[in-house]
């Protein structure tokens, strides 16, 4: 073996090993994150964390019950606002439209998807906070819902398009109208994919913080109804992490663990739903 060839083989093996190292480093970050959160958050999590209001500034103890409920309310609003638009819009794109309209809608959705969350926050602030002169849960739900629309729309459309044409034709051949075909054949055939899309969109906005700073703001007490500012887990993590109190840092870790746990579980469930197979064989 010539020395030149030996050198080339060495370079090849070395570089390929390095790519493996890159992959190992990148993936290990996830375990570092999880490890730190479990290590710092696990010791701070207690029954109080889930049931108590935040303690007055300066006192230790207390929990984040209001933030957990607040996050739930915000996400409920976001889902009610974002999912129907995304879902029905996707049906229009996949089943009814063609050509220019579809292009424009898709383009707008992709544009909206790429907008940084802070800019969504500005938009929601100008539209849903300033005119009413106060922060509210509704405004927060609106901001998060906006972010759910493009994610739901684009992936739902993909899954609807994945339904084989033979199914559409079979239903039509039996005399079903188009909307009946959509409602009773196409959507049921693609429901796993659609459910996955919605869950992923949900998980994505569950951790969003930036738009909430301007809309739902924050609240150290219970937020009554839908028209008051409300606490939320991500905003609490931010506020507690940059505050100078050790006890707040401890609670920020706990909240981080709860939030990340929730998001990872939703992600894993969503992918599990999808990998159990599309209900109909692809053509």
């Amino acid at each position: 073996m010539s020395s030149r060839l030996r050198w080339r083989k060495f370079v090849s093996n070395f570089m390929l090993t390095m790519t493996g190292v890159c992959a190992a480093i990148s993936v290990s970050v996830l375990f570092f994150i999880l490890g730190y959160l479990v290590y710092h958050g696990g010791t701070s999590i207690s029954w109080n964390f889930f049931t108590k209001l935040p303690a007055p500034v300066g006192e230790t103890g207390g929990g984040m019950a209001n933030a957990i409920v607040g996050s739930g309310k915000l996400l409920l609003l976001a889902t009610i606002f974002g999912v129907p638009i995304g879902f029905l819009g996707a049906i229009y794109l996949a089943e009814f439209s063609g050509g220019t309209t579809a292009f424009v809608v898709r383009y707008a959705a992709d544009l909206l998807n790429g907008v940084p969350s802070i800019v969504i926050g500005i938009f929601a602030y100008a539209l849903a906070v300033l005119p009413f002169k106060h922060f509210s849960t509704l405004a927060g739900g609106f901001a998060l819902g906006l972010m759910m629309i493009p994610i739901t729309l684009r992936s739902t459309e993909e899954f609807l398009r994945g339904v084989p044409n033979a199914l559409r034709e079979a239903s039509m051949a039996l005399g079903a109208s188009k909307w009946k075909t959509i409602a009773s054949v196409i959507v049921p055939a693609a429901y796993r994919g659609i459910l996955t899309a919605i869950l992923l969109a949900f998980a994505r906005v569950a951790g969003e913080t930036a738009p909430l700073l301007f809309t739902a703001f924050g609240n150290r007490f219970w937020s009554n109804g839908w028209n008051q500012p409300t606490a939320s887990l991500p905003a609490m993590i931010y506020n507690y992490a940059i505050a100078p109190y050790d006890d707040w840092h401890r609670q920020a870790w706990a909240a981080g663990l709860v939030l990340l746990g929730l998001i990872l579980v939703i992600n894993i469930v969503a992918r599990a739903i999808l990998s159990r197979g599309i209900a109909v064989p692809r053509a």
Partner: protein
Amino acid sequence: MATTTTTVPSAGPVAGSRSFLSRFREGDEIARMITFLFAASVVLVTFLLVFELWQGSVLPRHKFGFNFFRTSVWDPNFDQFGALPFIYGTLVTAAVSLVIAVPLGIGAAIFLAELAPARLSDSLEFFIDLLAAVPSVIYGLLGVFIVVPLMRDYLQPALKNSLGFLPIFQGPAYGVGFLTAGIVLAIMVIPYIISVSREVLLSVPRDQREAALSLGSTRWESTWKVVVPFARGGIMGSIFLALARALGETMAVTMVIGNNPIVSASLFSPGYSIAAVIANELTEATSNLHYQSLIELGLVLFILTFVLNGLARLMIVATSQRGAGMGHA
């Protein structure tokens, strides 16, 4: 790409042959109109967003014009607003993040696409997807309590001792600053580079690799000199995508950049970014001009990410189609 070619041509001749009235009576036209309304609302919302940003930043655009981007005095008390420190901070942190994330991300993508067996590759990709789902405030939390102390006590002193003659590694080590924000951003964007690059690399036709190997190249040579150049456009696209993410990232940067509006050559210096100043000041804007200046910053961010995302999409699609067009199957 079987999914995109199976479009139904509006139910074909069946729907076309029926009159509008009969389609209306069967509900098809109603369903069409309802879904159209929802689809149109997406366009409407996007249009409104652009309109609000443009309309909301009239004052500073007229008052400061281009000087808004060139001056660095940001003083709400005297209604002077120059955005240079924020733009500088945003660009510098994004640049630092790419310097770190691009080699790591592409290296990892090459491993996943070329080397790893399919099952290992898929399960690693699963973890990468989960990593992409971690919210930015969590990265900020880890940044504040883990990365900042590490930087202050170990990495920054070490860099200063070894490379301190470079102006970018001078000055006191605070922990927070451009470098720290760049590192946290790098960790955040790596998953995007890996996922997209892996997809693009996997779309390179198999015969490209086989041809290179049959000519006697080593495995690395076939990867680096044939496969990667073939996928170059898509890989660039993934980098643009990551750049757009890094520019618009708010929470993690706000928490570790130090929030100090200066232009400094040193990466150790605390700085500020566009997204961070919006997050900190929007709800506390003292005057209309202050508020609108922040919206103009939002507009800048919007335009930057809009252009980068558009370019990225074009490049990724072009590369995947090139791969598909050469008929690997």
